[in-house]
C-alpha cells in the first residue's frame, strides 16, 4: 500500500523505490527451513570470523610486549601484560631519520585530504558532462576510461616518472596529487550513478526556471549524487592514504606514513611490535571515513552495478 502511494507521485528519488523493493523482497525471501538457517549462519559466522580475526590480532598484538608476541602457539585475543611501549617507541625508532613522526602524519593527512577533495570534485564534474552533455567524443573518452579500469599501474610507473620530470615536479607534493586527476574509477562509478538517478526532466525543469549550468550542477546534481560522492570519498581516501609513489619522492620531509611504515617493518623481528602499531595507526583513518559515510556507501556501490 505504502509503495503504491509512493509510486503515484510524479517524481520520487529512486533510492526510495530501492528501499521499498528491498523491504518487500526481504519479507518474501525470508521463508527458509531450519536447516537452511543453520547453514546460512554457519557460513556467515565463518566469513565474519575470517574477516575480523586479522584485525583483532593486529590490534591486540600492537599492545603486546615483544616476548608475548612470540609465544607459541600465538594467542589471538588475550593480552596478559598490555603495554603502550610499541606506540611510544615509534618516535624513537624514527629518530635516526632526523624527522619527527608528526611530520609524516601531517604529510599523509594533508596529501590525502587535498587529493581526495580534488579527485571527487573533478570526477563528478567530468562524469556529469559525460553522462548528460552531448560533447563530441565523449563516447571515445568513456571507452578509454573502461580500458584504463583494466590496467595495472606498474606498467605506467616509468612513463609517469618522465612526465613528472618534464614538468619539473619530481620531489614535490604534486607527485601525490596529480595522478589522481586521471583516476578513472571515480568517473566510471559517478557516470553510472548519474545515468541511473538523475532524470532529464528534472534538469529541464531547472533550466526552464532559469537555472544556469553551475546552478544545475551545484543545486541539483550534487544533492542527488550525495551517496555516490561519499562512496568516492571513501575509495579515494583509501587509495591515496595507502599510496606509495614510485621513485618520485626523495626528500625525507615529503614522505608519507606508508613509506615510513615500510622502513619500520623492514627492521626485523625486534620491530614487529612497532610494525603492528603502525599498521593499526594506518587502519584508523579509512575506518573513520567509512563510519562517517557508512549508511550511503552500500547503496551507491550497489547502484553502480545495475547498468552495464
Amino acid at each position: 500500500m505504502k509503495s503504491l502511494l509512493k509510486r503515484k507521485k510524479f517524481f520520487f528519488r529512486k533510492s526510495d523505490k530501492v528501499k521499498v523493493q528491498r523491504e518487500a523482497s526481504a519479507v518474501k525471501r525470508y521463508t527458509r527451513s531450519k536447516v537452511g538457517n543453520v547453514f546460512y549462519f554457519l557460513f556467515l559466522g565463518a566469513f565474519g570470523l575470517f574477516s575480523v580475526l586479522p584485525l583483532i590480532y593486529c590490534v591486540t598484538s600492537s599492545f603486546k610486549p615483544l616476548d608475548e608476541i612470540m609465544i607459541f602457539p600465538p594467542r589471538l585475543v588475550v593480552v596478559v601484560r598490555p603495554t603502550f611501549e610499541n606506540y611510544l617507541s615509534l618516535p624513537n625508532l624514527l629518530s635516526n631519520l632526523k624527522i619527527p613522526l608528526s611530520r609524516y602524519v601531517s604529510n599523509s593527512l594533508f596529501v590525502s585530504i587535498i587529493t581526495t577533495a580534488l579527485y571527487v570534485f573533478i570526477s563528478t564534474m567530468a562524469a556529469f558532462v559525460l553522462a548528460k552533455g552531448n560533447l563530441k567524443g565523449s563516447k571515445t573518452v568513456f571507452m578509454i576510461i573502461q580500458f584504463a579500469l583494466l590496467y595495472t599501474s606498474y606498467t605506467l610507473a616509468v612513463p609517469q616518472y618522465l612526465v613528472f620530470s618534464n614538468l619539473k615536479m619530481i620531489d614535490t607534493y604534486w607527485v601525490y596529487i596529480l595522478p589522481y586527476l586521471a583516476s578513472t574509477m571515480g568517473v566510471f562509478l559517478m557516470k553510472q550513478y548519474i545515468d541511473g538517478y538523475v532524470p532529464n526532466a528534472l534538469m529541464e525543469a531547472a533550466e526552464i526556471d532559469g537555472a544556469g549550468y553551475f546552478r544545475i550542477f551545484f543545486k541539483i546534481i550534487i544533492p542527488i549524487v550525495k551517496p555516490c560522492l561519499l562512496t568516492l570519498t571513501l575509495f579515494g581516501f583509501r587509495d591515496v592514504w595507502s599510496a606509495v609513489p614510485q621513485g618520485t619522492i626523495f626528500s625525507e620531509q615529503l614522505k608519507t606514513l606508508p613509506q615510513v611504515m615500510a622502513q619500520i617493518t623492514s627492521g626485523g623481528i625486534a620491530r614487529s611490535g612497532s610494525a603492528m602499531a603502525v599498521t593499526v595507526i594506518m587502519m584508523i583513518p579509512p575506518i573513520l571515513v567509512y563510519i562517517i559515510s557508512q549508511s550511503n556507501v552500500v547503496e551507491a556501490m550497489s547502484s553502480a552495478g545495475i547498468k552495464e
Partner: protein
Amino acid sequence: MKKKKHAGVERLKSRYGLMFVTPFIIGLILFFVFPLISSVQYMFSRIRFEPGNTVITWTGLKNIKYVLFEDPHFINNVVKGFSTFAYSFPLILVVSLVMAIILVQDFKGRVLFRGISFMTVIIASGVVIEYVLKYQGADITGAGVETSIMEDMIDVESILTVLGLPTQISKYFQVVLSSIMTVIWNSGIQTLLFISGLQAIPDQMYEVSKVEGATKWEEFWFVTFPMLSKILVLVSAFTVVELFTSKTDRVVSSAYTMMQSQNYHESTAMLWVYFLILGIVIALIYIPFNKYCLKRWE
C-alpha cells in the same frame, strides 16, 4: 539507460560542458594515454637513464624474445598465476554469491555483517592489507605467503605437527587455509555487486515461480541465476582483473622488482606479453560462455 535529447539544455551544455570536463581530460592524457603509448614504445626499445636525459634506442623484438625464451622464471610464473586463478576464481564467485544471497535477506544483525563484509573492502588495499595478510598468513595459515617477520618468528608447520598430523595432510591444510583467507579477503566488492544484482530482480518473477510451484532449488537456477547473468559477467571481469593485476601475482611482482633495478624495457615487455596471454585466455573462456550460456538465458 537511454538519454533523450533536449535542444535547449544541450546548447547550454556544449558551452560549459567542455570547461567541466577539461581538468579530467588533461589528467587522462598526461597520466594515462601518454604513458600508455610510451610504454608500448618501451616494449620495443632499450632505455638508459643518463644524467640529464633519457636515452631510448630501438631494439625491435629483443625484449619480447628475452621474456619468452630466455627469462628463467617467466613461463613458470605464468603457469603459477593461472593455477592460482583456476581455484580462486570459482571460489571467489561462489562465496560472494552465497554471501550476497544471505545479506540481501532480512535478519537480526544484518547491518553488522554488511559492515564486516564491507570492512574487508576498505582495508583490503595497499600497504595495510599486505601487512595484515602477511601476519595473518603466518599466524593461522602459514602457507602461500611471502616471507614476513612473523613467519620468521612462528613456525606454523610445527603447530600442525604438534597436532599429530602427517606432513602431507598438514601441507594440504596450510594451502587450503591460506586460500580461504585470500578468497574471503578478495570477495568484498564482488559481494556488493551481487547484492545490487539481486536487488534489481523484479519481485514478480519470484511470485510467478511460486505460483507455478517451483522449489527453492529450481527458483535459484531458473530465476535468480539467469537474471544475474549480466552482473555475473561484470563480476567475473572484475575478479579476473583483480587477481591478475594485484601485486601478489608473481609476474607482476617480478616485473616490479625488475623495474626497481632499473630494468624498465624488459619489465614493460614482460607485463605486455603477460596481458596479451591473459587477454587470449579470457577470450577463449568468455566467447563460448557467451555463445552457449548467456544467449540461452536471454
